[in-house]
C-alpha cells in the first residue's frame, strides 16, 4: 500500500476524546505517520475539541481534515425521521455520505468507530485483498440473536440468521464500490417505505447494501467484546463494544491500561470531568426544565 493512508471516523462532541485516542492509536502503530490522512466526520464538535484533534498534526505530521456535518442538509433530512439516542446520534449515519464528502483522490479507506484501539499498521489493513468487492469487514459474533430476535423468531427483518452479517465498527472500503451502492439513496428509500423501523441502525443498512458482496476479514481486525484474557491473541484492532469502555474509571477490558496512555492520562481525566459535567447538566435540565443548564 503506497501513497496516502486514508482513515475516516464519525463522532459527535461527546466522543471527541475516544476519537482522538482511536486516531492516535493509528499514528502510534504505524511508521508511516506522515502518510496518514484522518477524515473526521463531526457533529457539533467544539472548536477546543477540534483543536485537540489537530494535535495529531503537530505530534505525528498526519493530516487532519474536519467535516462538520451539523449543517449538512442531506444528513439533516436523512436523519430527521430516524430513531436517535445517545448511543446512536445522527452522526452514525454520517459515514453513509462518505463518497459525497471525501476528495476524489481517495480510492480506498478504512472507517473506524471511535471506540477502537488500533494496534497494527493500518497500511496492512488498507492493503488487504478485497477480491474485487466493495467492502471488507469482520463478522458480528452476536448476529444470530440480533437478526432473529426473541426465541430466534420474533424479529422479522430482512436478514436470515444463516447468512453472513458484519460488524460495521471497522470497515475497509473501496471507494468506487461504496459509491455504486448509493447509500444516501438507499437510506432515503428505507425511510420513505418505513422499512427503516425494522432495522438495527446504520449497521443493518450497510449489511443490506453490501449483502453477499463483502469480504470477511480475520476477527483480529475487529476484536469485539475484548476480555482482558484475549490480549494473548495479539489483536490488530480492539473494539470496545460492550458497556465496559476503556476510558471509564472502572473497566475490565483488554489493553485498558495501554488505552489510557494512548488517550493520554491528562485527557482521560479531562474527559471524565467533561462526562460528569454533561451528566450533571442533563440532570439539572430534567429537574428544572430546558434551558436551566448547558455543559
Amino acid at each position, binding site marked *: 500500500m503506497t501513497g496516502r493512508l486514508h482513515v475516516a471516523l464519525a463522532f459527535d462532541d461527546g466522543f471527541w476524546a475516544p476519537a482522538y485516542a482511536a486516531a492516535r492509536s493509528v499514528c502510534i502503530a504505524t511508521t508511516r505517520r506522515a502518510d496518514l490522512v484522518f477524515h473526521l466526520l463531526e457533529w457539533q464538535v467544539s472548536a477546543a475539541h477540534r483543536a485537540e484533534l489537530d494535535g495529531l498534526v503537530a505530534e505525528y505530521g498526519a493530516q487532519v481534515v474536519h467535516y462538520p456535518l451539523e449543517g449538512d442538509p442531506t444528513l439533516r433530512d436523512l436523519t430527521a425521521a430516524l430513531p436517535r439516542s445517545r448511543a446512536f446520534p445522527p452522526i452514525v449515519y454520517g459515514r453513509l455520505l462518505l463518497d459525497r464528502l471525501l476528495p476524489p483522490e481517495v480510492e480506498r479507506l478504512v472507517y473506524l468507530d471511535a471506540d477502537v484501539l488500533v494496534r497494527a499498521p493500518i497500511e496492512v489493513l488498507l492493503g488487504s485483498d478485497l477480491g474485487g468487492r466493495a467492502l471488507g469487514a469482520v*463478522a458480528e*459474533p*452476536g448476529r*444470530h*440473536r440480533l437478526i*432473529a*430476535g*426473541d*426465541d*430466534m*423468531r420474533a424479529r422479522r427483518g430482512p436478514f*436470515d*440468521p*444463516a*447468512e453472513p452479517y458484519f460488524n460495521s465498527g471497522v470497515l475497509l472500503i473501496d471507494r468506487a464500490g461504496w459509491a455504486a451502492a448509493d447509500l444516501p439513496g438507499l437510506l432515503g428509500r428505507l425511510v420513505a417505505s418505513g422499512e427503516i423501523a425494522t432495522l438495527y441502525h446504520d449497521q443493518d443498512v450497510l449489511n443490506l447494501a453490501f449483502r453477499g458482496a463483502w469480504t470477511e476479514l480475520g*476477527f483480529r481486525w475487529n*476484536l*469485539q*467484546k*475484548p*476480555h482482558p*484474557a*484475549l490480549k494473548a*491473541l495479539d489483536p490488530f484492532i480492539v473494539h470496545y463494544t460492550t458497556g465496559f469502555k476503556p476510558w471509564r474509571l472502572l473497566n475490565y477490558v483488554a489493553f485498558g491500561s495501554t488505552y489510557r496512555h494512548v488517550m493520554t492520562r491528562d485527557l482521560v481525566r479531562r474527559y471524565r470531568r467533561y462526562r460528569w459535567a454533561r451528566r450533571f447538566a442533563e440532570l439539572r435540565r430534567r429537574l428544572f426544565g430546558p434551558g436551566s443548564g448547558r455543559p
Partner: protein
Amino acid sequence: MTDTPFPARAIHVALCFDDFYWAPAFGTMRSICLATRRRADLVFHLCHRSLTEAHRRDLLAITEEFGSQLRFYDIDKDPLCASVMARAPYNKRLTNIVYARLLFDKILPEGIARLTYLDCDMMVRAPIETVAEIDLGGKAIAAVADPQALGIKGGRDIKANRDLFDPADAYFNAGLIVIDLGAWRAAGIIERLEAMLADGTMNRIYYDQDFLNLVFAGSWLELDPRWNFQNPRKLHESLNPFLLHYTGPHKPWHLWSHVAFARTYRHTMTNPLFYHYWRLRLKRRVLGLLGRKSTGS
C-alpha cells in the same frame, strides 16, 4: 414419517440422547436449522432411548418450523444396542447412550454415505454443510482435537494406558464426528468393541471416545478447533466460533451460567422449553433429595 424419501442433497445429521435430554437435543437441532439456509436438506437421525409422546411432539416442531426431516430410532428396542449398552462400562455423567453412535452403520438405513454426528450439548452457529460436506481426503472421519487429550488418555501422572496410547499422538474429541459411513463400516467397529469388551480393555479406557480414537488412530482429518469449540466461556464469543460444545459441568440450559452465548442458547431452545426444562430438572432434583422418582415429563 419414515417412508419420506431423503432429499436429493440430503445432509444427514445424527444425535443420540435419552428421554431426559430431549430439550438439549432440540436446542442443538434448532441451532443447526437456524444457521443454514439448506433447512429442507436436513435429515436428523435421532437415536434415542424410549421417548415420551410429549417430548416426541416437542422434537417434531423442527419439521413444522423448518421443513427438516426427523427419523426416530428407539435403541431400547434394538437387541444389538441393548446388548452393547448392557455390557459396556457405564458412563455416570453421560449414561450408556454414548455407545449408540458406535452402531450407526447397524441402526441407520442403507444409502447414507456421509453422516455428521453431534453431541446434544452443542450449539451450531455456522452452516453445517461447511463441515458435513468437507473433503475428507481419503480419511474415514473428521473431528477436532481434544485440548484435554493428555489428561484423558494419560490419566494420573500421564502414565496410564501407555500400551494403548502414546501421549504425543493426536487425539480427537468425539462430540462432533463427520463420518464416511463406508469407511466406518469397514473399520469393523462392533468386532473391535466385542474384542475390547472381552479382553477388559474397555474397562480401563475413557468410554467410547478412547475407543474411537483407538479405532481411527491416524485415519482422521483434523478440523479447525472452531468447529468443536470446547468449554466455551463468555470471553470466547469474540472468536466467533462455528460450533460450541458445552463440555464439562457448565451447561447453557442452567439458569445461571457463564458459558458463551448462553442467552442466544436460551432463545434457540426457545424460552418456553428452556424454563419448562429448568422446572423439570428442579423437580427431579427435589424428588431425588426426598428419595422419590420423577415421572420425567
